């Protein structure tokens, strides 16, 4: 094709099409164009939309803004057609198909009658697809004003299946007149993280380069952490004294910002770098970053080193053993020894209680249920002399008591017997807390039983 064309026209100039480069240029132009308004949007392949709402007075009015814009584009060697309108659709139509006067571009003010002013624009000003334009042309609709002549219902019926705005002239017309909203996708500049080191003395040795790379990786890790991102692709540029640039690229399977990991990966890529007369600048740049949220440090590791807090310890215990297994003994207002202690969650605040009477000697440990023992004693209420507990005979050598603890009549039946507690020590020095349940002749049963309830230290 190109050969044929050159045969026909030998002095044909050929420029290779570069759509991606054009888009890239347009993106940068859109960001530059944000000097006239806070938001700008791309209109590929060759258009830009800038929202200058409430910003034109900064340039001395809309006309002055357009003049400024024309001058700046001209200074960059770009030819532009511009227009200002209340809606993006109207501005697009005016810029593409509007009158081209010498003053820089058409301005459609908000109070103007847009329908009347834009009636002369061709149908193509509606940003429609080509096949739709063909249909419209065949229908005899050539200018925007023509659509006023036929009823809206007729057009709606004709294009009832077309949902896309670019295929439905009614939607486009509404957008142009501001009847329906048309959201724009603004261009937001993102700066890729980059760190670099300029070296006073050009380096020629690998270990120095490794040191520089380590520093750069740590800087980069810090930068990425501040942005909450991780690198997918990294570029390491090495500027040599003689102007040569060596670039090494690295692509990771998953976003990362571990300095050690980056260093390790680059180390293999730096083996064949020719330092020449020395490297004077090293630059590390992330060309592709992905979000990588900050992570909780390793809890277990911290606990391994510094120990867990009490709350964490309790949590671990309760999760495995159940909430009933981890408890704290708290006093309870009762005379009955086994009722005088209650259990509550370990970290719950302790309710105030009456202090313990110091002359009440209590055992260190209490059996879950007082165990019945057979006791030799002088009836009716003498000291215990000997008792048998768990198949073992204990001679009582020392005894103190009795400490009489009456039943709590306000909550127990009247037949409950009192208890006479004795603190005893047997021949081997083992200390126990035993009681006689009732006394003979109290009318609440026969011969009283003996129980062993507590083990003293």
């Amino acid at each position, binding site marked *: 094709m190109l050969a044929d064309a050159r045969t026909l026209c030998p002095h044909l100039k050929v420029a290779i099409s570069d759509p991606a480069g054009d888009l890239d240029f347009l993106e940068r132009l859109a960001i530059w164009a944000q000097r006239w308004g806070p938001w700008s949007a791309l209109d590929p392949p060759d258009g830009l939309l800038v929202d200058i709402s409430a910003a034109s007075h900064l340039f001395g009015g809309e006309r002055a803004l357009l003049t400024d814009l024309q001058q700046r584009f001209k200074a960059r060697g770009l030819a532009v057609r511009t227009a200002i309108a209340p809606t993006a659709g109207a501005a697009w139509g005016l810029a593409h198909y509007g009158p081209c006067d010498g003053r820089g571009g058409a301005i459609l003010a908000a109070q103007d009658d847009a329908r009347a002013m834009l009636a002369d624009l061709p149908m193509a000003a509606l940003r429609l697809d080509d096949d739709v334009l063909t249909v419209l042309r065949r229908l005899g609709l050539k200018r925007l004003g023509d659509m006023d002549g036929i009823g809206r219902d007729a057009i709606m019926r004709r294009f009832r299946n077309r949902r896309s705005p670019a295929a439905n002239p009614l939607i486009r017309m509404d957008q142009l007149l501001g009847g329906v909203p048309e959201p724009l996708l603004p261009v937001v500049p993102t700066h890729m993280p980059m760190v670099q080191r300029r070296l006073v003395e050009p380096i020629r040795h690998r270990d120095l380069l490794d040191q520089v790379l380590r520093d750069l990786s740590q800087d980069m890790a810090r930068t990425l952490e501040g942005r909450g991102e991780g690198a997918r692709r990294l570029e390491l540029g090495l500027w040599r004294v003689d102007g040569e640039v060596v670039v090494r690229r690295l692509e990771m399977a998953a976003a990362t910002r571990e300095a050690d990991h980056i260093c390790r990966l680059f180390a293999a890529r730096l083996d064949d770098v020719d330092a020449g007369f020395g490297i004077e600048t090293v630059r590390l740049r992330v060309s592709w970053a992905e979000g990588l949220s900050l992570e909780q440090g390793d809890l277990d590791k911290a606990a391994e080193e510094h120990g867990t807090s009490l709350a964490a*310890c309790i949590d671990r215990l309760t999760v495995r053993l159940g909430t009933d297994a981890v408890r704290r003994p708290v006093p309870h207002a009762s005379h009955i020894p086994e009722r005088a202690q209650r259990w509550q969650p370990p970290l719950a605040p302790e309710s105030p209680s009456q202090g313990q009477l110091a002359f009440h000697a209590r055992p260190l440990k209490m059996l879950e249920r007082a165990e019945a023992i057979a006791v030799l004693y002088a009836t009716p209420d003498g000291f215990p002399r000997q008792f048998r507990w768990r198949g073992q005979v204990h001679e009582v050598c020392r005894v103190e008591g009795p400490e009489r603890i009456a039943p709590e009549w306000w909550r127990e039946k009247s037949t409950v017997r009192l208890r006479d507690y004795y603190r005893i020590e047997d021949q081997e020095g083992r200390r126990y807390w035993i009681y006689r349940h009732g006394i003979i002749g109290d009318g609440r049963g026969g011969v009283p039983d003996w129980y062993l309830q507590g083990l003293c230290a």
Partner: protein
Amino acid sequence: MKNPAETTSNHHALARLCSSLPGDFTHLSALSPDQGTDADRVARQWRPGSAGALHSEIFACGNEAAGAGMALSLALDAMRAAARDRSGPAAAAPSDDQRAILWVQERAAAKRGGYPYRPGMPPDLQRRVIHVLAEKPKDALFALEEGVRCRDLAFVVGEIVGNPQVLDFTASRRLSLAAEHHGVPLWLVRIDASRDLSSARMRWDARSVPSPRPRWNRDAPGTPGWHANLFRARTHPPAEWIMRDDGYRLDVEPPERQHTGAGAGQVSGPGCGPADPVDLVRAAGD
């Protein structure tokens, strides 16, 4: 060859050094080549306040509370010693340390020896006890290990019955390492257990002994005492004592002197201080 006298003097110096250094340096004395002379042995002997081991085992019978009582006394003694080290000999009261203590009981241990009873505990510990009731020895070991890993605990007491299979040398070594790494003492009471393999740094045998007669009621049980047999220790030679905790300090005395004193009873009179250790203020009023 070295001069034997020089070796001995070096050894004395080492023993002095070790007794004056806290913590990890004490195990240096365990590396000493020989048992040395009697004086050396005495210098290395355990005494109250010289608590260095962070993992101790106390073997006791399940029909008495001697094991738990001695464990609490030893732990309190260690805490007093630590407080003395921290703030000088004047302030020996451990009251500034209000960290909780963890008392882990296996279900079988609670069934056999009862559960902790707050009114009977040492007053310093009454508000601080957190009790863990584990169904199985495995759970108890888990709770013990979690306990020694917690920096907010003053010490951990465990009670395990018998020689369960899970409490083997590896498990006890695990406990020792965790306790020493985090600096939380562990007192493991082994109820009705045989002396199996263990990595506990100090291993005691505890049983009750008859108490001295109190001053005011000579027929009543007195200050609790235990016959403590340190049969295995890394840094101290094995020895036996009679220990008594009067609530303020841990008194120890050699066992043979005790037998004559406690058996007869008439030795302690109104003038004898140590044989009559009941605190008058506490006994008299509320």
